[in-house]
């Protein structure tokens, strides 16, 4: 029996879809069986980020309306074994799906797969409730800015009301240089307010945009700071105890030091 994890944030644009694609791919690279569900009905783009857009034939709406079997609607990833995507319908609206129907899909998928990741839409309306309906655990994505943290706090409250206990945090797009200069909220300040367990920190990485546009999740680009962070996060999800490294500043000297230490 697998585990259903909803990936959500409240605020839009903080990296839910990117994180879902990368964590899903990373888990599959470790050797786990993974299904990822795009719950952003009407504004689907997980398939685009995964580079599977052209292969989507059936969507979760087709499964719900019994136009096809669940197994048939799953799209196999191009690069990794045991990674499946259930795309969202682009023609429908979020209200067209009910939480029970979503829960049913999650229940069926977690019998077959070790991890079922649900990419939640932004907001706290029906779409969010659908995404969270079948979740056993939740991952909150936030960026270190006040509006994202405020929304994350709201979402945590809603998830707790729903009885979801394992709520973990990913702090996305942290820039150590800006934190040092006092222009960015630090990790400790975020944790002080949200008061949940930190699953990982993903540093600001310009490679994300390129990888999104190419439809290749960042984790395939081994060695980039973002990819390493997502790999560590995936390992932590599987229960490995991997400490969260202190973020290094990406200045000239640290790059030289990195370069030398890598040679050894």
């Amino acid at each position: 029996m697998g585990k259903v994890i909803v990936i959500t944030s409240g605020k839009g644009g903080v990296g839910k879809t990117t994180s879902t694609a990368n964590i899903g791919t990373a888990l599959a690279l470790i050797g786990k069986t993974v299904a990822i569900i795009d719950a952003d009905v009407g504004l689907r783009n997980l398939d685009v980020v995964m580079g599977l857009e052209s292969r989507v034939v059936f969507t979760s709406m087709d499964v719900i309306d019994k136009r096809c079997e669940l197994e048939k609607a799953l799209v196999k990833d191009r690069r990794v074994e045991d990674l499946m995507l259930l795309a969202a319908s682009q023609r429908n609206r979020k209200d067209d799906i009910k939480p029970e129907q979503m829960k049913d899909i999650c229940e069926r998928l977690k019998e077959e797969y070790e991890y079922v990741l649900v990419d939640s839409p932004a907001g706290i309306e029906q779409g969010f409730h659908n995404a969270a309906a079948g979740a056993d655990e939740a991952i909150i994505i936030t960026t270190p800015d006040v509006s994202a943290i405020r929304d994350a706090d709201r979402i945590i409250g809603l998830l707790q009301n729903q009885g979801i206990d394992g709520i973990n945090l990913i702090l996305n797009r942290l820039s150590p240089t800006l934190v040092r200069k006092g222009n960015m909220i630090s990790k400790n300040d975020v944790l002080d307010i949200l008061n949940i367990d930190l699953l990982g920190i993903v540093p600001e990485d310009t490679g994300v945009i390129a990888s999104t546009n190419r439809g290749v999740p960042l984790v395939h680009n081994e060695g980039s700071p973002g990819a390493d962070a997502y790999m560590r996060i995936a390992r932590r999800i599987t229960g490995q105890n991997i400490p969260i490294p202190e973020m290094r500043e990406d200045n000239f000297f640290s790059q030289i030091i990195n370069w030398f230490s890598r040679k050894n």
Partner: protein
Amino acid sequence: MDSSIVKLRGYKDGLHLIVNPKISLSEIELAIQELFAKMNQPITGTSIQIDLRAPTLNPEDSKHLETHLTETYNLVVNSVNIFEESAETPILAAPATHSIATDLAQGQNIDFDNAQVVRQTIRSGQTTRCLSGSVIIYGDVNPGGEVISAGDIVVLGALRGTAHAGANGRLSSVIVAMELVPLQLQIGTYVNRPPTGQKQRGYPEIARVGAEDIIIVEEFIKF
């Protein structure tokens, strides 16, 4: 609340006589007399400093207070320190016209000594409402969170959201928090907010309706 007109405190640099609210000189003198009368040991001959937290006292009055203390009680006054109200209280004065509609719970039995205990953090969008007494929160109140109480509000954590004490009009209600960095405070019909850019202070604070009908905030030492 009478005892807070004048307070005698020992600090590193000696005894301080702290004169707090904005009241007349004769009342201050009366309070000093009462304070000294209540003390077990005579205070004569001691050297003290006067901390004036009441800028309404003019220079003549403070001079008068000084000589009064020297002559009547035989005290040695080292210095007179005047504190600016705005620098001392984190919450700036808001005009008293900022009154709000009270959350009336008339006909309910209100027992201010009875408190509802909330064992969780109040997050953004969540509201804790207790119109039958006071509220104690074992956790934080995050920005966007709201606590409404007919009586007092005690937050055993950081108060970063909105708190409304005395929601049915009880002006003697207080708000206490280990860290008081609220978005907004309301007591009874009064509303107040901290100046923008308010940082955490690292010590507990208490908010109450002070003289001149504004919500004042000071370091919480005891009720």
